[in-house]
């Protein structure tokens, strides 16, 4: 057991001491720079070393690969715990012996920033890492997929809210494996599926070898996975993989937001580009394809960015993603960035070999979905986009003094919806009792809108239904003007695509039918 004041140099020394890597090599790693910055932001002051720790994931990889190497790699790891409170070995030892005069278990918990498991390997030493997120900054930052991780430190129970991260070891796992592993840590707890170790993920991804996808790849050592192989791994844990293109900025922001807020992490496939704006001949130099797990987002833009003919979506306020990038660390920042022309990309925390910057061009989004979530986001998004256009035509003519609605579309569950309803935080008011007593499906698409910052409507769509039927389950219209517009449109529902038509049809029939529930102001 060791207790040391935190510093970047001390962290490197402890990582080297707990692994087979030397300090000079660790100092050159991008992880060193990342963790130095991240732990400084969290205000780390003390490190407690747990010198012998049996880590499930490393043990699986050890049994699957390292045990049969000629070199005798250790089967146990070390674990470094971080605290934002200064204390020394004497104070910590006193706590362990029941003397609370200098430090208490409660103080230790309050100061707990999380842990890094150190693998006893020569290069890829960052094992399972659960560190506290960035502060929420008054609601600007959101980390909906974090879980509670418990650590028992010499008998003291500690917990941290995080999403597990680890660096790829390039043997049992490639970057895509590490990103999938982080995603499974969220979905496994949320949807109750087994959380595979990196070795098992790689095996599941490469279920049909030989493959034409990555012809020079064997299962182990592993050089990389294709999107199809990643989808195989998602399928192996009983989830449905959905792959969506990521060429449009609005599409990326809206899709990531809708699923992340629904507690589903999205795996983002990107192309990394060394981007030198001053180099006219070789402005962009492709570095290769990479995969990261999205773990959070920042809604830092002060206003929504209108899309198409002026459609306002709350998700367009996203200015930054927080991703688990196995080549950097947890919650690495990627900001949306405009390039010359109408091009866009994302900035990264990677370092450029040319002294410029490394940007990312998103290519695909891989959604690990519970099988009952059958209605994709795009159905609801496109319905609301069309409905908004129809409402806008009427608003411009009759209610030009009103603001255009800003829509918020995301996945939720009946449990979350009813908990909010019971707590009285979703504005159903007098209609709450009926909404609580009504049977609803497990997964729902929630659509809320505000006009000038004031709630104007709330829709619930069935996320488990079939596209051909009406998916609207509940509509609560807060604004009398909006209800007037909807009723007028509903009186003439000869326009619009199928779901838009169903919405208007339901609102027109609201007074006659029990389902869906249509509540007025």
């Amino acid at each position: 057991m060791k207790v040391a004041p935190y510093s970047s140099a001390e962290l490197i020394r402890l990582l080297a001491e707990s692994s087979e890597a030397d300090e000079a090599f660790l100092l050159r790693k991008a992880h060193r720079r990342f963790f130095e910055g991240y732990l400084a932001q969290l205000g780390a002051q003390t490190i407690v070393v747990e010198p012998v720790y049996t880590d499930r994931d490393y043990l699986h990889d050890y049994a699957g690969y390292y045990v049969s190497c000629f070199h005798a790699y250790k089967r146990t790891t070390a674990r470094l715990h971080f605290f934002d409170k200064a204390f020394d070995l004497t104070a910590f030892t006193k706590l362990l012996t029941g003397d609370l005069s200098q430090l208490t278990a409660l103080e230790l918990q309050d100061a707990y920033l999380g842990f890094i498991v150190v693998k006893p390997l020569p290069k890829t030493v960052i094992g399972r890492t659960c560190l506290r997120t960035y502060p929420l900054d008054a609601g600007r930052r959101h980390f909906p997929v974090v879980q509670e991780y418990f650590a028992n430190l010499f008998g003291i129970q500690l917990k941290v809210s995080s999403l597990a991260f680890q660096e790829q070891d390039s043997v049992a796992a490639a970057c895509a494996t590490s990103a999938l592993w982080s995603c499974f840590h969220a979905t496994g707890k949320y949807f109750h599926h087994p959380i595979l170790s990196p070795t098992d993920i790689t095996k599941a991804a490469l279920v049909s070898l030989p493959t034409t996808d990555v012809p020079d790849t064997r299962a182990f050592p592993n050089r990389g996975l294709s999107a199809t192989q990643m989808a195989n791994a998602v399928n192996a844990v009983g989830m449905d993989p959905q792959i969506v293109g990521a060429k449009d900025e609005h599409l990326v922001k809206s899709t990531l937001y809708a699923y992340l807020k629904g507690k589903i992490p999205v795996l983002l496939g990107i192309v990394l580009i060394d981007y030198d704006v001053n180099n006219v001949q070789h402005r962009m130099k492709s570095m290769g394809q990479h995969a990261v797990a999205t773990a959070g987002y920042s809604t830092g833009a002060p206003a929504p960015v209108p899309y198409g003919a002026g459609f306002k979506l709350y998700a367009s306020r996203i200015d930054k993603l927080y991703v688990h990038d196995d080549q950097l660390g947890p919650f690495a920042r990627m900001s949306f960035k405009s390039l010359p022309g109408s091009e866009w990309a994302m900035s990264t925390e990677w370092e450029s070999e040319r002294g410029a910057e490394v940007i990312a061009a998103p290519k695909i989004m891989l959604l690990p979905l519970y099988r009952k979530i059958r209605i994709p986001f795009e159905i609801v998004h496109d319905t609301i986009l069309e409905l908004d256009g129809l409402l806008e035509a009427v608003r411009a003519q009759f209610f030009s003094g009103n603001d255009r609605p800003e829509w918020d579309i995301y996945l939720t569950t009946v449990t979350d919806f009813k908990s909010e309803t019971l707590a009285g935080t979703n504005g159903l008011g007098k209609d709450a009792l009926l909404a609580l007593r009504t049977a609803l499906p497990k997964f729902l698409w929630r659509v809320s809108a505000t006009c000038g910052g004031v709630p104007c409507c709330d829709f619930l769509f069935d996320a488990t239904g079939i596209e051909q039927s009406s998916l609207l389950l509940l509509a609560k219209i807060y604004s009398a003007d909006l209800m007037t517009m909807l009723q007028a449109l509903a009186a003439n529902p000869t326009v619009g695509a199928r779901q838009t038509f169903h919405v208007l049809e339901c609102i027109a029939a609201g007074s006659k039918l029990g389902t869906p529930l249509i509540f007025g102001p």
Partner: protein
Amino acid sequence: MKNSTALDGLGSPSLVRSIAEWLESNDGRQKIQESLSQSQASVKVLNEARTVDPKALQEPVTL
């Protein structure tokens, strides 16, 4: 329990009628048609962006 989904007494019936009449007028139809065309154009762009080139699914992610 009484089903309270009724919309009776909401908004202004005369305004609803006026808007409905405008929607059936040439001007209203044109505005609605323009709106629908714009929505369809946006959805078309999004659908293209959503589509993944099958070749891209086979490319290795190696970094």
